[in-house]
């Protein structure tokens, strides 16, 4: 099988039996945004805006380099953005503008308790 054929036929997440690396006992406290991202995934599935299987497919279709380098929830949120464009629910420019808007909001000084 050629290398490119292998890339096409084997999904980046299909890894059963493919490693002999030691298991590193690892866990981390989820960052608040990771938990929000997980909750977002569940809500998207509840409403069938993006179902869980579409999320899996969307992560795979990021390709092996992104699957290998992004963290778990980074893969999820990028995949949600792609799927929302595909479904014509969002436009790429919508997200770019909104990210700028959210970033600008954080750059503002925190409101005082009275405001």
């Amino acid at each position, binding site marked *: 099988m050629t290398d490119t054929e292998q890339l096409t*036929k084997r*999904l980046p997440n299909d890894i059963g039996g493919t490693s002999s690396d030691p298991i590193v006992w690892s866990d981390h406290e989820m960052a608040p945004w990771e938990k929000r991202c997980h909750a977002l995934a569940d809500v998207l599935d509840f409403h069938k805006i993006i*179902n869980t299987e*579409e999320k899996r497919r969307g992560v795979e*279709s990021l390709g092996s380099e992104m699957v290998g380098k992004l963290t778990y929830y980074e893969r999820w949120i990028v995949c949600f953005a792609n799927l929302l464009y595909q479904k014509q629910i969002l436009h790429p420019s919508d997200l770019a503008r909104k990210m700028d808007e959210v970033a600008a909001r954080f750059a503002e000084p925190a409101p005082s308790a009275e405001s």
Partner: protein
Amino acid sequence: MTGQVLAPLDLRGDVVLATGEAPGFEPGDTVRVMTRSPIGHYRVPRYLRGKTGDVVAVIRPMAVDNEEEGYGRNAGSKGHYYRVAFPMAEVWPGYVGGATDQLLIEVFQTWLERA
């Protein structure tokens, strides 16, 4: 009851089941996983292709094929998943372990043929 075939009913013979409603396999049937290589999305790991195992349960309820679900189907066209047991030695040549060690997995009906 999850994973079990329905008990014989008094009315069996009088009640006509809809197309596809009766499972094609029953516990004890020997099945082979097909060897095709779909492009895009699949939920049958590559390590399983072409392997032979025994059906241990019919999963209830019937469900959407997750390879269709991955492209946005949320309802309709449901089919049967089967819990299938494979001897580890059948799946992994050179497997180190007990002779009766097993691998169990759910496989959608479109991937199975009678062996």
